[in-house]
């Protein structure tokens, strides 16, 4: 494997890791506040559909992003209603929302576009296109030199390759996702809101005693979760790919959940875990099977690796993953 191939795999890693990272941070907010959310998958799927559908209908990707986030927030609201207001089972609510998204997206897509449960392919304006950072070799240079882009990059020096291929040329949502990591850390660990949010996931009674609304905080957390899932879904349909196809999240919500446990509910570790799982996906995407010193690793092992790693972590063989203490329990105010 030469240097350029490595860079390309890492570049693909960034793209694959972005939806995982956004969904993982979404789950982080929710679970830190004590609301389990296995409905990340459904929210992403819903947002992916609505962002692609509105972008296709209006030709404006920002409107698409907005409606994607809005649709994800609606599901978040339902989850909040079920698990906070009516103190229902959070896991069952998550399962229900996943199915709701999986069914509704195809149903609406079919009656709106009649293309077999997908949206029309998005053209340039309907997508988040790559942003070219200054001094990077991009499509504009290729057009000016009248040669294919990959030839230009192949001829460039290693640092320029690294810069042009790996760092530059991603859509804005990739950079936004990366910015959300320090932002999440700052909000959770350096603000009063963050302290209260973490407290409500560990000991809601204490927060209640202090005169802060447990329900309000939890709804805020679930709302942030919806926002981030919405961006993740919009990136899937309008950044990573050009349009919505049925079940396009293909388990990413669950991988994000796995990454969250892997990271033990910490923002910077979440970045690491998502990059690792993104790398696995990128490798599985590029190589059908991997030779490992005369031994072939089948592609199915690569597919299953994130899940296997998570089970190993959960089993406590590599340090113990301890979730927020009040996670999954509805808060009943004593009277």
């Amino acid at each position, binding site marked *: 494997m030469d240097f350029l191939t490595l860079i390309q795999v890492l570049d693909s890693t960034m793209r694959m890791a972005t939806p995982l990272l956004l969904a993982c941070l979404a789950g982080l907010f929710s679970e830190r506040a004590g609301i389990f959310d*296995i409905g990340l998958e459904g929210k992403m799927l819903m947002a992916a559909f609505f962002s692609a559908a509105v972008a296709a209908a209006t030709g404006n990707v920002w409107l698409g992003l907005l409606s994607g986030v809005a649709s994800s927030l609606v599901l978040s609201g339902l989850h909040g209603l079920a698990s906070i207001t*009516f103190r*229902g089972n959070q*896991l069952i609510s998550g399962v229900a929302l996943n199915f709701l998204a999986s069914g509704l997206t195809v*149903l609406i897509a079919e009656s709106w576009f009649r293309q077999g449960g997908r949206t029309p392919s998005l053209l340039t304006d309907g997508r988040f296109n790559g942003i070219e950072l200054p001094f990077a070799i991009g499509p504009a240079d290729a057009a000016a030199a009248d040669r294919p882009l990959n030839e230009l990059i192949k001829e460039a020096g290693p640092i320029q390759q690294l810069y042009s291929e790996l760092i530059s040329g991603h859509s804005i949502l990739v950079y936004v996702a990366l910015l959300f990591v320090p932002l999440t850390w700052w909000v959770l660990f350096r603000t009063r809101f963050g302290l209260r949010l973490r407290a409500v996931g560990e000991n809601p009674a204490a927060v209640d005693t202090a005169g802060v609304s447990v329900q309000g905080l939890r709804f805020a957390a679930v709302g942030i979760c919806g926002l981030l899932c919405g961006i993740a879904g919009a990136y899937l349909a309008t950044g990573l790919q050009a349009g919505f196809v049925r079940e396009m999240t293909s388990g990413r919500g669950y991988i994000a959940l796995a990454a969250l446990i892997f990271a033990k509910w910490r923002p910077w570790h979440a970045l690491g875990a998502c990059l690792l799982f993104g790398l696995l996906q990128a490798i599985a995407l590029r190589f059908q099977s991997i030779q490992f010193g005369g031994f072939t690793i089948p592609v199915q092992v690569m597919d299953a690796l994130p899940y296997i790693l998570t089970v190993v972590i959960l089993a406590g063989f590599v340090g113990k993953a301890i979730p927020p203490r009040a996670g999954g329990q509805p808060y009943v105010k004593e009277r």
Partner: protein
Amino acid sequence: MEKMPKWADVVLIPVISLLLAALISAIVILLIGESPIEALDLMVEGALGSTNGWGYTLYYATNFLFTGLAVAVAAHAGLFNIGGEGQAMLGGLGLAIVCLYIPFPHWSIALLVAGLGAGLFGAAWAAIPAYLQAKRGSHIVITTIMFNFIAAAVLNYMLVNTLKPKGSMEPATGRFPESAQLPSLHDILAPIGIEFSKSSPANVTLFVGIAACVVVWGLIWHTPLGHEIRALGKSERGAVYAGISPVRTVMITMLISGALCGLMATNNVMGEAERLVLNATEGAGFIGIAVALMGRNHPFGVFLAAILFGFLYQGGAELALWTNIPSELIVVIQALVILFTGALDNMVRMPIEKIFLALRKENA
């Protein structure tokens, strides 16, 4: 004192939840631009109007019987087995290996041994999450979700690399031998003079499923083990105080639950497809959740709910065939049923409890 009579809890609340789900589905159908009444007509006609329709309805119902019972058994111990899909996949794998490599003289012996293989594989797949939950405290919901994905990868690998016949491109096993093919409802009912559709997939495993209902009912309410399972589900501390070992009970419950999911393979793999294909389970493991919630974790309730969902699946397929309503409508209905009977249970329950309390006050 109970807030409301038992019949309200067992019958009224599920029925109201179901009506709510149906109402929202009707609105969805209206928004698509079709008539909900005509749609219901078509579904009833397609699923219950002919023996062929009944055959499909009962075939789906048999799948859901097994997975619904599996979720219900786990729920009695306070465990949420969301891994039915993976356990059913592995059950299919175990069944396929038995059917392909052991020659059987008669289908009844084949069903017995293949069912054993399917149950063993399903139970084995549930055993690891169960052990991790019981011994190491890893949350069973997360581990069983992970095991669904791992099961898909295992099945994919086995079909592509080992079980696929030589020269075939499709990731599926070859057809099972003649002696391992189960009699359909047509074959069973013909001797007693009942005409039943020849082409429908309902088969003898329907009776296995019904037997499983009876066995589970006996197990949960009339054996010491069932008592231990329910005690653990009500209160772990109470169970420990009563000398019940949580580790042992969790393990046994999940083994039973996994085996029930595995047994589903006798219907969909052995009875219908007569070979193992990649997506053989078709989400039945997840429908088990809706079925168990709807059936209030009681085998008889599960039986009724399984038939209801069998009707929805067959009716939904008919809808997709004759109207512009895609079969995904059923996924939406399933989601709404899970939402209303499971997560939003209190939303339905609280007003009804209030009504009953008010009625009681008037009487007093």
